[in-house]
């Protein structure tokens, strides 16, 4: 009560808001965005055509959206959190009936201006939803079965819907983001250990229900030379591209692996491979450092936020972002099986860009309205 009285939410002047904006974060996003545009440009062998144009447009549109939505009050996000979640679930259900199929999976809905991938939005929705959910719960209550089961169900529904598309990669990312918040909220360590053990025990069963192509991907991960021209092709070529980049890389537009079309999906999941081939170890380190700075900034915003919602959201989003980046890079360097996960901002793809920018705008909103107590 004391806090809310001293700082009325309406007391923010426009000038104060502008002052509160984290410009450093915006600059990092802009830099990564520029790198991504040049990388997509390179996938088209230095032609300013389809992919580059699309990517540039999307980045500009969603980046602007990020800046504008940053000024939406964090309390609005708090209040609409469940609606956001329900909307996500509805869109996922919509995919089942009206979705567009591509290469064997049904993930998209045609929204005329773009093909929306609801599972990407769900990645943010689950974080917002869980942040709100745990915002109110006392730390002493968290361990109760009620508060254990409810979020579990909230998490399993979208995961199930996404797995059946099928899209294992996104499902893992959604699950990972959700679990990160549950972890942050303080759920007893033993539950994580137990569920980890259960997962391990049920692994053979899980593998048996996997689709043949998913199985082959996992087998290929352990031995890419098993089928060098089939399932192992992508990872072998990706490693060749990255490895041949060396310390300084082959130079901008000089990546032979991608230029000569040895790299599959170079616009999307393998964009890091292309970047790493052209800019080498140093370039890759710079990019990873930029991502690390981005995550650090988000965590800092979370730390300086007053509300649990903002804290949980920022930490959760930072963890999710880290998870996306880690899974993608680990995948293309051959540390994880190819599951299909885009690299935030870098990868070509509207829905991914939309969800990341949306997520960032909530982070910025947390920063601008950091002292907002949010209805207790």
């Amino acid at each position, binding site marked *: 009560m004391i806090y809310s009285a001293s700082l009325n939410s309406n007391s923010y002047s426009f000038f104060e808001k502008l002052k509160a904006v984290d410009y450093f974060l915006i600059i990092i996003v802009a830099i990564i965005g520029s790198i991504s545009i040049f990388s997509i440009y390179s996938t088209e062998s230095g032609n300013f055509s389809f992919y580059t144009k699309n990517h540039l447009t999307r980045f500009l549109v969603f980046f602007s959206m990020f800046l504008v939505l940053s000024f939406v009050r964090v309390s609005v996000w708090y209040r609409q959190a469940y609606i956001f979640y329900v909307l996500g679930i509805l869109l996922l259900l919509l995919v089942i009936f009206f979705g567009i199929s591509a290469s064997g999976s049904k993930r998209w809905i045609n929204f005329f201006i773009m093909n929306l991938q609801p599972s990407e939005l769900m990645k943010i929705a689950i974080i917002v939803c869980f942040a709100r959910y745990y915002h109110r719960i*006392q*730390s*002493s209550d968290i361990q109760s079965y009620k508060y254990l089961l409810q979020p579990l169900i909230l998490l399993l529904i979208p995961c199930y819907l996404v797995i059946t598309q099928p899209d294992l990669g996104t499902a893992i990312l959604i699950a990972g983001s959700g679990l*990160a918040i549950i*972890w*942050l*909220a*303080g759920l007893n360590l033993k539950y994580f250990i137990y569920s980890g053990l259960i997962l391990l025990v049920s692994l053979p069963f899980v593998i048996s229900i996997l689709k043949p192509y998913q199985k082959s991907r996992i087998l290929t991960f352990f031995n890419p030379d098993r089928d060098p021209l089939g399932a192992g092709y992508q990872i072998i*070529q990706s*490693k*060749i*591209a*990255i*490895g*041949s*980049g*060396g*310390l300084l890389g082959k130079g901008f537009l000089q990546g*032979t*692996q991608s230029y*000569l*079309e*040895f790299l599959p999906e170079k616009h999307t999941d393998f964009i890091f491979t292309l970047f*790493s081939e052209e800019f*080498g*170890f140093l370039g*890759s*380190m710079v990019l*990873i450092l930029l991502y*690390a700075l981005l*995550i650090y900034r988000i*965590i800092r915003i*979370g*730390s300086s936020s007053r509300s*649990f919602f903002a*804290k*949980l959201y920022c*930490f959760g989003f930072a*963890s999710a972002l*880290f998870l996306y980046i*880690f899974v993608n*890079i*680990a995948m293309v*360097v*051959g*540390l994880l099986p190819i599951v299909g996960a885009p690299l935030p901002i870098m990868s070509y793809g509207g829905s991914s860009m939309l969800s990341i920018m949306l997520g960032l705008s909530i982070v910025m909103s947390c920063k601008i309205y950091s002292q907002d107590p949010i209805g207790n």
Partner: protein
Amino acid sequence: MIKKTGNLNKNKIISRRLFVLVVAKIGLLGIITSRLYNLQISQKQKYEVLSDKNRIREWKTPPQRGIITDYFNNIIADNQRVYQVHLSLEEVTNFNNSIFKLKNIISLQEDEIKKIYERKEKSKPWDTLIISENLSWKEFSKLNLYLHELEGAKPVLSTSRYYPYSNDLVHVVGYVGDATTQDIQNKKKVEENFVPGLKVGKIGIENSKDTELIGSHGTKRYEVNASGKKISEISYNKETKGENLRTTIDLEIQQLAQELLKDQAGSICVMDIYTGEVITMASSPTYDPNKFTHGISTNDWNKIKNNRLRPLLNKSVAGLYSPGSTLKPLVALAALEYGIIDTKFKVNCKGHDHPYELYGERYHCWKKNGHGLMSMRNAIKQSCDIYFYEVARLLGVDKLSLITKRYGLGSKVLEDFFSEEKKGIVPSTKWKKQVLEQSWYLGETVITGIGQGYIQTTPLQLCLMTAQLANGGYKIKPNLIYDKEIDLDIIKSKIESEKNKSVSQNILKDQEFKYYERLYRNPNNLKLVLDAMYGSTNEQFGTSFRSRHKEDKYKFAGKTGTSQVKRITDKDRELDLDLEEIEYKSRDHALFIAFAPYDKPRYSLSVLIEHGGSGSKAAAPLANKLIKKILDRHELREKIRKDLKNIA
């Protein structure tokens, strides 16, 4: 307050949990960093190689063969522009369809199509298949007209071997053909430079000088994309053309020789008696080597193979014949050198009624009425058999064999130059024991004395023998490829110094001679023999008197010979049939050896006509025409020799 402490507690939990997450993140980032380090720094080279392997593909380009010329720089084996059609397999969607379309535009035989399919099986998807190596201009222009309908088909201008004097030189130059697995295994140079479609020498100079002629293949490196399509040329290591070769052959004399041999089976060899340069090596009949370049048709092959005059046999080096009377100068020389006879030694030839008798066997002279009392000079000149029966008996086969070998018989003339070259046989008692495991009979010595019996020689050996007699008895080095190391002036000065050298006691013992070393004991013996050969051609009753040149500058000396194909029976002798009345296969081979000009010998030659009858009638007349041509071209050849020496 409870709430506040609860909130504080919650804050604490979140911070602690966040700390764990951040530590985990840093750990995971560490893993990624070390992985990238491992790929990009530690294993960089491995992946660079893999990347290059990915993107670079090599195409080998065939080298051009070296050109072969005669002594006067006339091209006798050339590279000719040919029109070809290649099929780039990566651009072909339906192979059967493409072949069907091509079949309608260019004429492709069923067996050719079969071969194309066989080759396609062995090709890689990005290879180019040669559909036709040698299109006519008409076919080629038609192909270009329909090119838009033929995906992957490429009209190509290429070069292939061409022999402008087709038949005339096939036995010298040989021919080329596709490299077989055997060729690749046997010839290192072929293996190193193998390119699909590479032609290699099969016989003749093309075969023996393949290493020089082939050259080195080029390498084109292309950047290719994932589906193997060429994107750009990275480097082109140009192929190097094979060495050009100058032979010692005189094209004009060779052509004349082939013309003289036309429609007959036989051989003509001409050699420089000092330099050992083979000026002509004609063998008849011939065949067209151009037919082999792109694979000979079964029909053409059968025609060549079934010709009873055996065109494929290079008679100059691979045909074996008894030397007949052409051996007589050597028999006389041997007897003189060993001091068995002197110039006054005479034998009476009394005709068929009184043949030479030895242990009850009777040996006849070819002349029915006999020659009468024969001295050595007359015996060579008139080719009296009885005289040489007696000389051979006195000399013994082993001494004869030794001298015969010394002057070039019984071993290969051009060493390994022609794979088909034969050594021939120079019999001796030892030889018979070793090879036939029988003892030698004196009767066999007697017939060896007139060049019949076991003795077998090639026409080129006879030519070399004549050369080494005519040059005064010096060993020379026969050769077919111009060699600047072989210098006439040096040879002549070497011979001059040999002439004045005192002869060792062992000169008549079996020994190896170096090039240009003297082979004789007493120069007068040789002079006598050569003079007798002069008589044989230029004096009445000489066996080649009718083939002589009256003009001084063309005067030559020679010796006829008749090589018996089968033993002459008493019945044959009684019948005394004309040549035309004898079955072809049973007719004698006609031989003639000669050197010219007589006063200053420079060239030797041998003529052989298979089943031509007597040497004086069938072989010697050809020498007449040849020698005129050879001597007419002497000045020109000497001029070229000087030019070549100056260049060197």
